[in-house]
């Protein structure tokens, strides 16, 4: 579904990504782990079009997407979240969810001035959808709060919720559970499994190994701007190099 | 702001709007002054206000007009047409002045002109754009500044008469800059001299070296500086530095006594200034010099003196403080066969005795054509010497 070949990205001479080759098949949850600075977030930025690649190719569902604008990539059903929750501090949670809705005729000038039926109908559909997602993510009670008033964990939930508003084919989640309290972590985990079972492919950057081991069928390990190894969690965790690079017992 | 705060704020403002009306004494005649006190023209406006106030004081001391004393209501036009229109609306709407004097920038005059003629208010101005008197103003506009053709012709004749063969024209960007150039060129050619080049520059720059260089490159023996004070200072300094030694001429309103104070004398020595004037040894002009204690009273001060004098004489003549009557009376006291008078006070005395007067002003004879332009005038040429201005001649 997602094919990445030979992707590099330089920041002023420093290689953040130095030739990443990997493929993500349709379905399931893929974990992406690796030490800080391994290039995981940079890779997400490149895939989502937020950063241009320096070289290499990225294909999504067979179409080349490197060089596309972020909105075009998002429009193809590839949606991401951010590691440090980013978003719209002056929008309410509800508005933030609604914003992510696809196919909104009301975003046109004429429709917004006329309050056309098409836009109102679509708005109603999106409201139902947003309310449903808020319910599932336990955000219903904060719908009218500004996003800037949310706790760190709630911001993370909002990021997931926003992404789900787009009915994505693939979700790239950058540490969605960081800073979320443990009971909710379990809940989000289950939610992700459900989402995945509905046919959404999820790529998940995460540091909590128990989560990775529980949720992911497949794990990709990144180190030094490259893919190091991939496989099942047990396979990966058993690898000496991985233990050296990630777990930190080098000697 | 909540509702109550808003209401009380409105009440205060409404109160202040009404206050002048309450305080207005029936006996006072209010005349409007609309002139730049801030913005680009701000160095000229206050001078004109002072000149007018000096006349008002003199007349009030002598008993006023039609038995009433005079008060000037001064508003700032900010040298901006938008602000000026608001100020003009206030003068005609609130103070109900029959005459507005003192607009300076042509754009300001053109902008307030419709407000004036529609409210039947006279407008007296120094603005130079020829288009102003072409407006459909029904006679309400009086411009004491000679029109471009008149000025250009007379100035060019003078320049040719002092023997200049190659003249260069430098002008700040104004509505009259380009037409003046054409007129000067044709007169010069007719007089056997020539215009070797001209440039129109942008105001408000801190240096005009390159402009001056390109002027000097044409090797002129005379340069016409059609500028306002801030630019003129820079131009004169840049000409001096560049070693230019030919003749220079400029308007007296640009080279004022204040400007002279700020520049070293040898930079300006030999600079010729010109201003419209009536006669050799014009009595009106010497009265202005005395009244303002300024031997180098410039064109704007002279014109300001004339506006207020004309307005007061016209009120006395018509016996009414009404714009339309003033409009109709101006020509009755400024031209024709009456006794020549050179100041408002003098003229008022004669008018009160039932005599006819013909006001000859500090800026000229003040004879207006049907468009409101002055018909003909002479020009007073002076030369800067040691920081002072010495009369050369009046032509």
């Amino acid at each position, binding site marked *: 579904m997602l094919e990445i070949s030979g992707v590099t990205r330089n920041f002023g001479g420093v290689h953040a990504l130095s030739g990443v080759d990997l493929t993500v098949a349709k379905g399931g949850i893929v974990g992406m782990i690796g*030490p*800080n*600075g391994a290039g995981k977030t940079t890779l997400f930025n490149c895939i989502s079009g937020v950063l241009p690649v320096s070289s290499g190719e990225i294909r999504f569902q067979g179409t080349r997407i490197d060089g596309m604008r972020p909105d075009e990539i998002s429009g193809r059903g590839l949606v991401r979240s951010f590691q440090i929750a980013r978003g719209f501090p002056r929008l309410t949670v509800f508005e933030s969810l609604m914003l992510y809705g696809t196919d909104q005729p009301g975003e046109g000038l004429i429709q917004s001035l006329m309050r056309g039926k098409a836009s109102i109908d679509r708005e109603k559909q999106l409201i139902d959808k947003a309310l449903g997602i808020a319910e599932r993510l336990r955000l219903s009670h904060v719908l009218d709060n500004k996003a*800037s*008033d*949310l*706790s*760190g*964990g709630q911001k993370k939930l909002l990021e997931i919720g926003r992404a789900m508003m787009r009915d994505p084919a693939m979700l790239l989640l950058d*540490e969605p559970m*960081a*800073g*979320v*309290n*443990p009971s909710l972590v379990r809940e989000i985990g289950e939610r992700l499994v459900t989402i995945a079972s509905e046919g959404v492919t999820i790529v998940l950057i995460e*540091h*909590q*190994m*128990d989560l990775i081991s529980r949720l992911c069928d497949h794990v990709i390990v990144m180190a*030094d701007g490259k893919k190091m190894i991939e496989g099942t969690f047990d396979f990966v*965790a058993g690898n000496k190099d991985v*233990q*050296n*690079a*990630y*777990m*930190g*017992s*080098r000697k | 702001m909540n509702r109550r705060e808003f209401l009380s704020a409105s009440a205060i403002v409404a109160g202040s709007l009404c206050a002048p009306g309450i305080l207005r004494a029936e006996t006072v005649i209010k005349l409007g002054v609309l002139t730049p006190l801030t913005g680009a023209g701000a160095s000229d406006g206050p001078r004109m206000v002072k000149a007018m106030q000096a006349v008002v004081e003199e007349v009030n001391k002598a008993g006023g007009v039609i038995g009433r004393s005079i008060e000037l209501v001064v508003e700032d036009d900010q040298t901006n047409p938008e602000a000026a229109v608001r100020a003009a609306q206030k003068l005609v709407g609130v103070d109900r002045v029959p005459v507005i004097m003192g607009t300076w920038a042509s754009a300001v005059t053109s902008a307030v002109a419709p407000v004036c003629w529609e409210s039947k208010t006279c407008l007296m101005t120094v603005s130079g754009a020829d288009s102003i008197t072409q407006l459909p103003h029904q006679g309400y506009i009086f411009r004491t500044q000679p029109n471009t053709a008149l000025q250009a012709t007379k100035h060019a004749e003078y320049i040719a008469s002092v023997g200049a063969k190659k003249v260069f024209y430098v002008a700040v960007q104004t509505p009259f800059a380009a037409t003046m150039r054409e007129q000067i060129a044709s007169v010069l050619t007719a007089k056997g001299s020539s215009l070797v080049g001209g440039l129109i520059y942008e105001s408000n720059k801190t240096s005009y070296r390159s402009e001056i260089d390109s002027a000097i490159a044409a090797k002129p023996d005379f340069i016409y500086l059609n500028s306002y004070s801030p630019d003129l200072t820079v131009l004169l300094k840049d000409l001096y530095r560049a070693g230019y030694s030919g003749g220079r001429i400029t308007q007296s309103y640009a080279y004022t006594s204040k400007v002279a104070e700020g520049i070293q004398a040898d930079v300006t020595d030999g600079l010729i200034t010109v201003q419209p004037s009536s006669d050799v040894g014009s009595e009106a002009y010497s009265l202005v010099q005395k009244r303002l204690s300024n031997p180098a009273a410039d064109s704007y001060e002279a014109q300001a003196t004339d506006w207020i004098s004309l307005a007061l004489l016209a009120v006395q003549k018509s016996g009414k403080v009404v714009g339309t009557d003033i409009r109709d009376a101006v020509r009755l006291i400024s031209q024709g066969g009456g006794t020549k008078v050179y100041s408002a006070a003098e003229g008022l005395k004669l008018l009160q005795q039932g005599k006819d007067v013909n006001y000859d002003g500090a800026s000229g004879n003040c004879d207006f054509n049907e468009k409101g332009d002055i018909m003909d005038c002479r020009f007073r040429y002076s030369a800067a010497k040691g920081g002072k201005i010495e009369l050369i001649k009046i032509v």
Partner: protein
Amino acid sequence: MSVLAVENVIAGYSVGDQILKGVNFHVGAREIVCVVGPNGAGKSTLLKTIAGLLRPSEGSIVYDGAPINGMKPHDVSRHGIAFVPQEHNVFGNMTVYENLEMGGYIAPKHFRARADEVMKHFPILLKKKTQLARTLSGGQRQLLAVGMALMVDPGLILLDEPTAGLSPAAADELFAEIRKLRDAGKAIALVEQNAREAMAISDRTYILVDGKNSIEGPSPELLANEDINRMFLGG
């Protein structure tokens, strides 16, 4: 006897969003204490709160017998606590030597002697003395950041993920330097992702979970504990 005593501290970036929900934390003299825990548990926030970048809404922070909670960062640093943030911890557009000077801003008298000492300690800094800090490699930058902290001869050094983004070799080197500092008499508090390695060089470890102390104890003991290994260290 603790150099630093943090008691029941509650703090966060905005009202109603507390990240530290009652943390107790002590650092003794000549001791490396390391703080580990999952992302978002409040490890960095703890250090920032001690350094004065965040004002605790409750609890007390006592350093060397004097309460320092609520102080501004520059006052905290004058008390002898040197904080090395995780990112942006050097002045990129200033030279290495100028960075050291800024590190010792509050003690200008001893600047030259200290700078020489620090550069003797970290010879790479001497070599790169006149280079702009942003041209240094990640590891060199971290060394410079630690070097800047040493310029004030602090009693306590707070290090926020000093090995983040470093190559294993550079991380090893840095950890070795941290141990040397401890041996030279400094108290050090260390937040690390690189949990095992950090615990290996530290004397005591705190594990924070969701803004609260979860487990604390001597590092070797915790490292040897199977459950802890599985739950927090991914082993």
